[in-house]
């Protein structure tokens, strides 16, 4: 900074800082006297010197150090900064502003329910309010510090002294300005020397008054770059408030204009100018031919089929697939066991509504008596309040569900005899039945004498 005009100013006449502590150099003496700059060896000596200068009645002086020195403001007699008060106010405005922002956006201008919470709820707004508080406190703190310190000062008479360049490195400096009422060059120098200065030098202003302020080109650069930075905002503002006959500016034209048609766009290839083409009479889309009545509609010779379509291989994997789909699509209402006690009817019952769901598993109930084709049709097209699942489930999955429902019906009144003898050892301990399931009269009861290692013993207590 201070080396800017080195080539024009004569070097310091006498003082280089290692003399007897009372440098008397009068270098740079080409303009009016600005003040005196003294260097001290340690921060502690600087603080002591500052106190002496203050006690001598000087007011127009300042201390310069590479780092904040404890106690310097008290020694210089500077009153405490009002910055903390400003920061408190800034932070408070941040809180209010953040909360107002959230109220305006989410509760007033565009009410939007998120996660079932009220549009205006304090707990959800606290984090944002907290962040804006911090943000505004930091802004006030940062910019307030610069403004209160009258920074940045890019042009100052002390910058003309080489010594001052060391203030960001290892120099502890005290400068007294000549405009101080008590200033007297010799007496002031003596005061600073008595306070232990290792070097003292006067500082003169530039001879040319035009060079005493910031060079015009720096100012011009700041102003012009600031103006330049505002151009995008100005363009955006103009575009928002005017109309234009010019086409849009396209930065990636090959992304914006792709060689394809989107639905509902115009197309001059056809007489009706539509790019959407409907089905042509007498044609059918690839994969859309559903000619097989049994496979797609559950019909055989115009009646509900009682078997399965001949294309399907009914094996364990197929039934497991049916179980998987059933548990996803059917169990919410019909329950995992198919008895009509799923989560939805349970919840409705808890709220007092009356709504019954068919028991799919009971062999005595209607669904068990339906032919396979009718079950398939019900899954596909719905029944009463149950909607059809043809959109969600491919036809093969619907047939798999039919197979699984048959398995559920088979297991409804199952006894240990239904389990193959070699699998009986693998059976987990049965859960307690959810509903009374009296053995149907048609099912032979197990012989009391039969060896049954996995036969459920009556539960001794508790309930699900």
């Amino acid at each position, binding site marked *: 900074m201070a080396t800017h005009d080195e080539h024009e100013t004569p070097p310091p006449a006498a003082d280089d800082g290692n003399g007897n502590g009372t440098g008397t150099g009068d270098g740079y003496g080409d303009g009016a006297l600005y003040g005196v700059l003294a260097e001290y060896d340690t*921060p*502690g000596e600087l*603080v*002591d010197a500052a106190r002496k200068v203050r006690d001598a009645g000087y007011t127009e002086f300042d201390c310069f150090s590479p780092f904040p020195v*404890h106690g310097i403001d008290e020694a210089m007699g500077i009153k405490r900064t009002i910055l*903390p008060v400003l920061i408190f106010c800034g932070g408070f405005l941040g809180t209010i502003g953040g909360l107002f922002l959230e109220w305006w956006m989410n509760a007033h201008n565009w009410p939007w329910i998120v996660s079932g919470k009220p549009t205006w709820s304090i*707990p959800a707004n*606290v984090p944002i309010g907290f962040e804006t508080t911090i943000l505004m406190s930091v802004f006030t703190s940062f910019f307030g510090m610069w403004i209160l310190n009258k920074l940045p000062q890019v042009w100052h008479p002390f910058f003309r002294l080489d010594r001052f360049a060391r203030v960001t490195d290892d120099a502890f400096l005290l400068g007294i300005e000549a405009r101080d009422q008590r200033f007297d060059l010799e007496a002031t120098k003596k005061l600073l020397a008595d306070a232990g200065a290792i070097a003292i030098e006067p500082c003169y202003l530039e001879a040319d008054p035009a060079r005493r302020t910031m060079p015009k080109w720096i100012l011009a650069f700041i102003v012009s770059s600031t103006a330049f930075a505002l151009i995008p905002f100005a363009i955006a503002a103009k575009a928002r408030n005017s109309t234009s006959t010019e086409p849009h500016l396209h930065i990636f034209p090959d992304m914006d204009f792709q060689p394809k048609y989107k639905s509902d766009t115009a197309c001059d290839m056809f007489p009706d100018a539509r790019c959407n083409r409907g089905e042509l009479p007498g044609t059918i889309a690839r994969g859309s031919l559903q000619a097989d009545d049994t496979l797609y509609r559950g019909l055989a010779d115009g009646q509900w089929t009682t078997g399965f379509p001949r294309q399907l291989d009914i094996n364990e994997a197929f039934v497991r697939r049916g179980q998987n789909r059933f548990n996803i699509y059917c169990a919410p209402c019909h329950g995992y066991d198919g008895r009509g006690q799923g989560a939805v009817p349970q919840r409705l019952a808890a709220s007092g509504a009356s709504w019954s769901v068919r028991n799919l598993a009971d062999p005595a109930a209607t669904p068990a008596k339906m032919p396979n084709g009718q079950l398939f049709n019900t899954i596909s097209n719905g029944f009463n309040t149950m909607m059809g699942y043809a959109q969600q489930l491919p036809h093969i999955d619907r047939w798999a569900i039919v197979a699984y429902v048959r398995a559920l019906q088979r297991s409804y009144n199952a006894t240990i005899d239904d389990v193959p003898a070699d699998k009986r050892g693998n059976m987990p301990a049965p859960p307690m039945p959810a509903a009374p399931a009296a053995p149907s009269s048609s099912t032979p009861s197990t012989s009391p004498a039969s060896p049954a290692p996995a036969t459920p013993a009556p539960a001794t207590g*508790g309930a699900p």
Partner: protein
Amino acid sequence: MSLTKSLHPDEKYKAGKLGASLTKIGGGIAAVFLGVSLILGGTHGDGWKRFFHAYVIGWSYIFSILVGVLWLVILHHLARGRWATAVRRICEAMTGAFPLVFIAGLGFVIPVLAGYDNLYYWTHHDAHDAVLNHHLHHKLGWLSPEFFAVRYVIYGIGFTALASYFARKSREQDESGDPKISEQLRIASGPAMIVYALLTCMAAFDILMSFAPKWYSTIYGVNFWGSACVGGFAALALMVLGIQRTGRLTHSINAEHYHDIGKWMFAFTFFWAYTAFSQFMLQWYGNMPEETVWYKYRLFGEWQWVSIAMLVGFWAFPFVFLLSRWTKRIVPSLVFFAVWQLVFHWLDIYWNVMPQYDWQVTTIDKVALNAGPLMGDTALHHVGFSPVDVTVWIGLVGLLLAGIGRKLKGNLIPVKDPTLPLALAHENL
């Protein structure tokens, strides 16, 4: 003006009979108030349930204060602190009370081990019912009285070892003046901080959070630690003032050191609120029954008033006033807030424990089972302050003072610590 300062020649830095008299006073308080508490607890007519709840609250209170103070000791070494050297010996003396505190804690650990099942629900037979307590069932491997007692002993040994290591080495330096001891302590402080953090969190989970054994919160230990540090720094401020009132350390410790203690107290006041709100907001937002149940019994019914008191008293009021530099530098003002926060720190622990006091009995298959805390109508859960809550608290604080007094001997300031001259000249910007 200088950056270092040596110990004032007239400074009284020897403890002398201070420790012995503090032990006497503290022991007297403990004997009287714990005796009264035994009478009150025995005549409460609830099988000592109230007494033991009050005892765990009071014990957690004195334990947490030491946790807070120990943190300053370890942090001071870890961060190469300067100012706290002036009060570090007092901190070391305070954390010297850890052994006595952990012996006092056996007062509830042994009954739990012996089968007392009115304190922690997880010790109750019905907590094992797989139907009634499906989720709790899986936690009972950890929450078993035997394993709980083992962990308690680990906490006791761990905290005692940490505290005594730093105190012993510091005393050694008083003799030898060897600056290498500072270096050793600095190296030890890193691992010590990790051990300290784990011990603190786990102790909070075991001793306080397990009052609500079905509840989930991973930040609970951090939140407890924040509260503990508020209590620790508040207690430290009062301790320093008490010692200065006896004419000791009057030159060494000044407004600058009080200011820094106050800054920490302020910081943790906010930190506590920050973690408490984090815990609350995530559970409120997630809205899952196993999490919100803890707040259900704090935000409705009588307890909502305690919750509001916590928000205003433990955070908003001290936060706004401790923001200012002067409320921390003017000693009577700092003392006011220290006492204030010590009371609310107790209320914090009370608020953490006592909503779980009322257990509900439920009937399954015509069998009456104790379903434990946080069940039933919120209107049935009462704040119900009882005299025994306060007498146990005061008695245990007396015990803490007695424990501190035992260690308050010799030099009250680390006279040969290389950083002491910097600490004595310490100034806040």
